[in-house]
């Protein structure tokens, strides 16, 4: 059997290429090289850099459900915020060890994602979109009212985050924060990449492309969606925790609709369902935001808006989508 199998594959090189889609390509080193280069080139921008890296992790978690499983969500800040508050509350209550804080955030956010997923993923389309929104609003209000735990509208203050591994103190210049966020992003990327190229990941693509057919080939679609929703929530929770720990502050905005909306915008700018959309869209958006707000502190949001309109009109599919179309044209 194994002989005939390898014969078949040897006989059809195209099939071998199909089987090796998951191999690492050279360009996949680019984001990491760029991130390391940025560390040395822009030492005064490291706090912003750490935010960008953590937000990229957040966008990556959204891509996993939106780009691969096709679950449109307007409430992913719920998971992000739950993670941020988990790490934050731990650090306020006397456990400031950052790495276990991230793990705790992943577990709590993952559980909240699992429960809400079980609840809402029976529905589809606009109903589902509304449900994701409702969950986020509920959590926002809960955090707003539970002032003794979360600090309510004043935000969670007094976080004491210990040095990473007991060695690297979070400094004022953001060097530790930057490398910490980079490491978290890298680990998350390894996990997401693994999932995306697994048989499970391919089945998610199937669900996105044609849910009806997935059911007809015997896929437990609901279970798959709940699982990936929980995984994505856990990753979003880590992103929230990284930002909480590196800024030593958590505010209600971490659960806000604004955040759910902007993360979608950033991901769409980069390109949805391409694994690297987050790595392009988030830096692009956040750097543009930073620059526009310096040049034009009053109307910077207008420029962001204009930029978005142009991008959506002339480059549907985001930066990566347009790149893919260009290379296809090139080959023909």
């Amino acid at each position, binding site marked *: *059997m*194994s002989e*005939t*199998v*390898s014969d*078949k*594959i040897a006989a*059809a090189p*195209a*099939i071998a290429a*199909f*089987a*090796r*889609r*998951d191999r690492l390509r050279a360009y996949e080193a680019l984001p990491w090289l760029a991130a390391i280069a940025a560390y040395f080139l822009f030492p005064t921008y490291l706090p912003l850099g750490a935010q960008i890296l953590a937000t990229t992790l957040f966008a990556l978690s959204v891509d996993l459900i939106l780009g691969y499983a096709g679950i449109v969500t307007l409430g992913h800040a719920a998971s992000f915020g739950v993670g941020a508050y988990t790490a934050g509350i731990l650090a306020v209550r006397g456990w400031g060890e950052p790495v276990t804080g991230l793990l705790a955030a992943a577990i709590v956010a993952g559980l909240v994602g699992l429960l809400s997923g079980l609840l809402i993923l029976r529905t589809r389309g606009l109903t589902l979109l509304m449900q994701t929104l409702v969950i986020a609003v509920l959590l926002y209000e809960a955090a707003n009212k539970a002032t003794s735990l979360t600090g309510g509208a004043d935000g969670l203050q007094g976080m004491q985050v210990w040095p990473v591994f007991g060695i690297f103190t979070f400094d004022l210049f953001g060097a530790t924060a930057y490398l910490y966020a980079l490491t978290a992003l890298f680990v998350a990327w390894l996990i997401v990449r*693994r*999932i995306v*190229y*697994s*048989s*499970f*990941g*391919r*089945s998610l*693509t*199937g669900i996105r*492309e*044609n849910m*009806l*057919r*997935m*059911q*007809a*080939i*015997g*896929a*437990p*679609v609901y279970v*798959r969606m709940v*699982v990936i929703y929980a*995984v994505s929530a856990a990753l979003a929770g880590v992103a929230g925790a990284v930002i909480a720990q590196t800024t030593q502050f958590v505010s209600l905005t971490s659960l806000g609709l604004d955040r759910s909306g902007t993360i979608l915008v950033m991901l769409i700018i980069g390109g949805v369902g391409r694994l690297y959309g987050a790595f392009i869209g988030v830096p692009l958006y956040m750097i543009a935001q930073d620059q526009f707000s310096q040049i034009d502190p009053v109307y910077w949001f207008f420029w962001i808006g204009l930029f978005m309109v142009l991008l959506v009109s002339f480059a549907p599919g985001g930066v990566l989508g347009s790149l893919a179309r260009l290379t296809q044209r090139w080959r023909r």
Partner: protein
Amino acid sequence: MTDIPAALETEKLSLNFGALHVANAIDFRLDPGARHALIGPNGAGKTTFVNLVAGRLTPTSGRILLDGLPITHLPQDTRVKKGLVRTFQINALFRDLSLLENVTLAISERVGIASNMWRSAGSHRAVIAEAYALLEDLGLADDALRSVRELAYGRQRLAELAVALALKPKVLLLDEPAAGVPSGESGVIIAMIERLPADITLLIIEHDMDLVFRIAKRITVLLRGRILVEGTPAEISENAEVREVYLGERTPT
């Protein structure tokens, strides 16, 4: 005959929307290895029947048995795992994925690797090789790496069958396999259905009478959610009632 459990059986299967009976106490039996056709005018409830049996719709009352065991309330994916597979009247494929991927997805579900989040899909070489072999067998290997979207419509209909066959069905429900295919080209599809292994039990829902009379050994005529008559092709073509409501439109007398 009755001591062998039917491959598929329905007992008083009914689906009502208020006063509208889309399926009205359907007693239907499919013997193992059958080549059975379900025909009837538009709106007779043929596709509804397939949706009920496959598990996309839940019946108001009645039972469905697969191999003598009740499956009435099992979810669709469990029925597929038990060997009850359907195709769609309108292509329901993963249009932006390659043909090979379409079939690989189905095989991955069948062999149970599709819930594996860690191992690379590409490392399951045997699954990919099986998918490719199936495409070769059906004469589709040349298009293996094309996306379904790029294929001619007739080829897409064959792909629809390929995805179903990848699941190694025991009972295969073919919902208008030749729908939308120009009559000159339906021969390829008929030939493929004729070549299916004899142990696959077939139920074909079809409008194309050529196809029905070429393949079916028994025919059931459905009218307004109810079985009008069942018999051999000869009996059906002779039946006055059937001629009146259905074939009558086609036979000039």
